């Protein structure tokens, strides 16, 4: 009896020791590779859009290995939460799927910034949204915005509908009901997709623009993975997903002007250049009015997510860190790691020039 009890205690102690040593193994060892000459030190805190999460993780990893003394924390609490945290001064930068509105900037109550100096907004994360479908033997279909809107609004219900056939001569469309899959959780992907439909097909898409799916009807699935699974496992399904997840499906080429533009990173980045800046903003504020019906050959269904920082920080310690981190994000390397990790479209040279000027001006 005593022996077993004693061995029980021994086992508990041994287990405790294992647990504790496990913790110890996670502590930073402090012997970072000394290849860089970076002297930056400190902690940079950001919060915001969950759409940027994978990209931010890649950026944080890349940036921290180049600057061992810096810790970057990005909390993917969602765009709204990110903007609120930034206003409250709880973070030094924010990620957001939309820019601040004029009236929010006019209130000028950004906790971390010097009052009256405005903010920097950079559309640095451009994520194309692909319209994907699951039809045997068909890899691509041409559709105009009104057709896509009709399908997702539940007005076009069969694949052999004349509206789809009209833009797809020579494609044999099956007599099959359409199941349109949308996101059941609130998401920036939904908001941008719906925004495109509302802008490009206003006569068909009369619903509000919202991150929650605004129509009663259609099939709902949770998160990007849920939509991917639902489209893959269903018959005659169509959905919209982050373009990085579109490889296994047929994709829709979207009509812009007289052309049909299939999704590509370059075409997606081009839409940001084709869109005008929001008027009346500060020097460093690169907020754009996304032009969903451009004249040039650009892919209009994109999610553009902003990085938001102060023009002038109340605490000067933050300045160098923010500048270095944002510069890394817009750099070719930063955009490349995001493209690999999150399937985003690297920003154009034109935007890079403007963004670096804006970042340089931060003080």
């Amino acid at each position, binding site marked *: 009896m005593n022996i077993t009890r004693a061995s029980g205690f021994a086992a508990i102690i041994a287990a405790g020791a294992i647990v504790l040593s496990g913790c110890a193994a996670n502590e930073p060892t402090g012997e970072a590779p000394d290849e860089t000459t970076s002297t930056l030190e400190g902690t940079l805190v950001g919060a915001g859009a969950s759409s940027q999460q994978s990209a931010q993780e890649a950026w944080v990893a890349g940036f921290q290995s180049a600057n061992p003394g810096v810790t970057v924390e990005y909390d993917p609490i969602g765009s709204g*939460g990110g903007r609120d945290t930034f206003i409250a001064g709880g973070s030094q930068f924010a990620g957001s799927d939309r820019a601040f509105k004029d009236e929010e900037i006019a209130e000028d109550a950004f906790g971390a910034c010097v009052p009256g100096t405005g903010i920097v907004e950079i559309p640095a994360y451009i994520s194309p949204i692909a319209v994907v479908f699951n039809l045997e033997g068909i890899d691509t279909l041409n559709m105009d915005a009104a057709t896509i809107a009709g399908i997702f609004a539940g007005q076009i219900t069969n694949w052999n509908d004349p509206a789809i056939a009209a833009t797809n001569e020579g494609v044999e469309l099956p007599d099959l009901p359409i*199941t349109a*899959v949308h996101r059941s959780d609130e998401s920036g992907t939904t908001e941008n997709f719906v925004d495109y439909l509302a802008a490009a097909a206003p006569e068909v898409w009369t619903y509000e623009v919202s*991150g929650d799916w605004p129509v009663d009807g259609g099939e709902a699935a949770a998160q990007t993975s*849920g939509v991917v699974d*639902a489209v893959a496992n269903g*018959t005659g399904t169509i959905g919209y997903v982050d373009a990085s997840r579109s490889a296994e499906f047929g994709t829709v080429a979207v009509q812009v002007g007289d052309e049909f533009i299939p999704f590509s990173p370059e075409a997606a980045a081009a839409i940001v250049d084709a869109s005008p800046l929001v008027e009346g903003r500060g020097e460093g504020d690169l907020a754009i009015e996304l032009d969903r019906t451009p004249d040039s050959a650009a892919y209009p269904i994109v999610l553009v997510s902003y990085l938001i920082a102060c023009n002038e920080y109340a605490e000067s310690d933050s300045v160098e860190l923010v500048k270095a981190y944002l510069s890394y994000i817009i750099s070719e390397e930063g955009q490349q790691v995001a493209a690999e990790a999150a399937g985003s479209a690297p920003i154009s040279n034109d935007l890079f020039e403007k963004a670096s000027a804006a970042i340089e001006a931060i003080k």
Partner: protein
Amino acid sequence: MSTETVQSIPKPKLRPGDRIFSGSALSAGTLILIALAAIAAFLIIQSIPAITTPAEDITILRGTDFFSYAFPLVFGTLWAAVIALVLATPLAIGIALFISHYAPRRVAAGLGYIIDLLAAVPSVVFGLWGGNVLAPAVQPAYSWLEKNLSWIPLFEGPASGTGRTILTAGVVLAVMILPIITAICREVFLQTPVLHEEAALALGATRWEMIRVAVLPFGRAGIISGAMLGLGRALGETMAVAMVLSASGAVTFNLISSQNPSTIAANIALSFPEAYGLNVNVLIATGLMLFVITLLVNMLARFIINRRKDFSGAN
């Protein structure tokens, strides 16, 4: 025994072991009450802003008031749980009877073990299985139901193209609550007094008649409490429903279409990551409603069990 000996026995001596054990039992009992009270207090305090704030100021409500937002969720929660219970209870009773009264002992032990194993599968795995395997597999059946039985309101259609309907979610939930109902039924059936069973057999009852007159009446309270425990799990199940169900917020009894009410727990899981400010309070307020519903269901179950106890033959 003489009276002198009885008197000479001293007052029962409390050994340290007794004191420690009664103390720890008491604190364990108190702790659960404290935890429950703390959760209830959290839910109530956090819910108040959601109900007192004008609905226009809360974005998640999209123009309606709180109760019109919550009603489809409450409906969906109850509807999915009822479907699961209707499917799982007869099956569980059958399995339990097979294990306790029909199967050879060696098979019975193995089968019981396998059923218990189902309870160890994480709900995310059930969600993946339901969404990726079960839903596509039953989709043709839904199309058939729509074609042939659409005059029954339950199968009105249009049939879902992916099979991710509330019936599929109900089946997944039924599989999830099967182990607990089966385990309790099995234990209760095994408790049936052998004298009752033998008496029934001696009166000329067949095995089925013996089960009907001796085992089932004896086990009725156990069946109900097992079903209620299962119902509790079905009401609160989150991930599996969130992953399987195509939720559109419609209030409908239609089992096979893409239009399904969501459940409270699944809705919280799906909406919470992007929620902030008052939207969080609204979600917590729906959580409070689930808390109250579960409480009511359990009280109802207690009431039924207490009322039936006298007739069950257990006493």
